[in-house]
């Protein structure tokens, strides 16, 4: 029932030369601003100080780096799960709404999406301050007498990252839900399934590519997230991005930083490959339409 994907040609063939001419600038751009720099960085990780795998050995020898990696995984996973829990019902309602309600929900999702990440992070910094709104609220309802320490904690990072990354979860799920022909719901109903049963047995499995896609997207983005942890987090609970940045900027240990980037890139690539079937970015962003 699905049409051809974006990347399946359906037009009449163009000549090889024309294709190269048209694709050339794209590949050049990607080469200059992505492939080469990344390759160059990774080459440093194995070539400096001498051709060696020592930098990678260090990543795994010193338990602290594994700790940071694991923590990063844990936080990214937590953020993804939280995003999913928050996003799924939103996407469901969004997909089932028409008219002003649909516009309202879409706007609520999209507006923050398009307002600066920095602004949103700053907003959380303000909200979570010692004398900020959240503490004020908690004190007002008597949950705590002393203001709690909320800023510069892992909790702050998780909440803010969830907030920032949620649209990346909502949109793919919404897209997947919208792509389910309503006829399936009817078919399920006529087979005797009530609304909940239909959702569980039909809608959810059919939306799974979108759900997994959104989950992976959020997870991958969270893995390498830099802004929010560095502004709201504590170095005590450092994530991999901060570690890389620190190795790069403070310790000036570029080969080692490159090795960390290499490990991170490898992990991300493996995850992307494993889920490449469902990780179809085009479809996921198709949800915007």
């Amino acid at each position, binding site marked *: 029932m699905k*049409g051809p994907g*974006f*990347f*399946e*040609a*359906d*037009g*009449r*063939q*163009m000549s090889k030369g*024309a*294709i190269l001419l048209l694709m050339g*600038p*794209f590949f050049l*751009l*990607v080469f*200059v*601003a*992505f*492939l*080469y*720099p*990344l390759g160059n*960085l990774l080459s*440093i990780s194995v070539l400096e100080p001498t051709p060696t795998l020592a930098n990678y050995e260090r990543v795994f020898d010193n338990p602290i780096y594994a700790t940071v990696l694991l923590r990063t995984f844990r936080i990214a996973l937590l953020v993804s799960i939280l995003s999913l829990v*928050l*996003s799924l*019902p*939103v996407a469901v*309602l969004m997909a089932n709404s028409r008219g002003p309600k649909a516009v309202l929900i879409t*706007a609520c*999702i999209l*507006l*923050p999406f398009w*307002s*600066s990440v*920095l*602004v949103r992070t*700053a907003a*959380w*910094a*303000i*909200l979570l301050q010692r*004398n900020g*709104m959240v503490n*004020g609220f908690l004190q007002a309802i008597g949950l705590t007498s002393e203001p709690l320490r909320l800023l510069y904690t892992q909790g702050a990072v998780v909440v803010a990252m969830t*907030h920032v990354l949620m649209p990346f979860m909502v949109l793919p799920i919404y897209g997947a839900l919208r792509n389910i022909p309503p006829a399936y719901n009817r078919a399920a109903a006529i087979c005797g399934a009530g609304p909940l049963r239909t959702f569980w047995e039909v809608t959810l499995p059919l939306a799974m590519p979108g759900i997994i896609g959104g989950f992976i*997207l959020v997870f991958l983005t969270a893995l*390498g*997230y*830099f802004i929010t942890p560095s*502004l709201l987090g504590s170095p005590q609970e450092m994530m991999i991005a901060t570690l890389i*940045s620190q190795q*790069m900027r403070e310790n000036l240990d570029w080969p080692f930083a490159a090795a960390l980037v290499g490990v991170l*890139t490898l992990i*991300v690539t493996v995850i*992307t490959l494993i889920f490449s079937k469902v990780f179809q*970015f*085009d479809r996921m*962003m198709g949800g915007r339409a």
Partner: protein
Amino acid sequence: MNPRSLLLHAYVYAVLVFILLPILVILPMAFSETTYLTFPPQGLTLSWFGDFFTDSRWMASTWFSVKIAVLTAITTAVVGTMATYALVRGANAMGTLFQAFLIGPIVVPHIALAVALYLFFQNAGLSGTTLGYVLAHSVIAMPFTVFTVAAALTSVDPALEDAAMSCGASRFNAFRLVTLPIILPNVISGALFAFIISFDEPVIAFFLAGIRDKTLPRMMFDDIEQNLTPIIPAIAVLLTLLSILVLLAAAVLKHMADRNKGAEGQ
């Protein structure tokens, strides 16, 4: 409304509050008279906007960001449309490679990309230059532009171009006179996406900031880290207005695109 639906609505609206709250909270602070941020804001002043518009550093970085974002938008629109066209209209074989290259910059953590670019641009003398930014931002904005354009392009019947050629148009004219006008709204909204992505890019800018020129996000990052004055909410207000404008523009464009496509019938 049955209880199940009521529950769903309640949950969703609670989530929407969670999404909107931070922004709703930060915006009024732009009008606060205090030099630090508290809620509720105290007093009412527009002086932070004044500060923003009169401080040469903020202004310079804003214009710098605008310049980069405009160039990025143009670059992605042109390069992305060319490549997408080639792909949708034939380069089947390169599809996988293309997609890998396209998605790479999204899934590879930006910190990694930033570090890599930093190193390379440092060596190539591109660090902090407009060209450097435009290259970097184009790569990360490209997927959004490409998918917007591809969505339009795949829904344009390739037979339209055949028809144009059978009418005597060359392949290029068929594209220029038929396909391009039809997909133009999407190309522009793709460019708008790229603009916003570039304009709001903090991580790469964090590493690439040049001697003289800093992008607005980089300035904001510094201010958040160092001062956190109400100038940030003031900028937030301005950015929100800009986003609303852009979203409206995108909505209008989408409407136009639908109108263009409508005629294919069936």
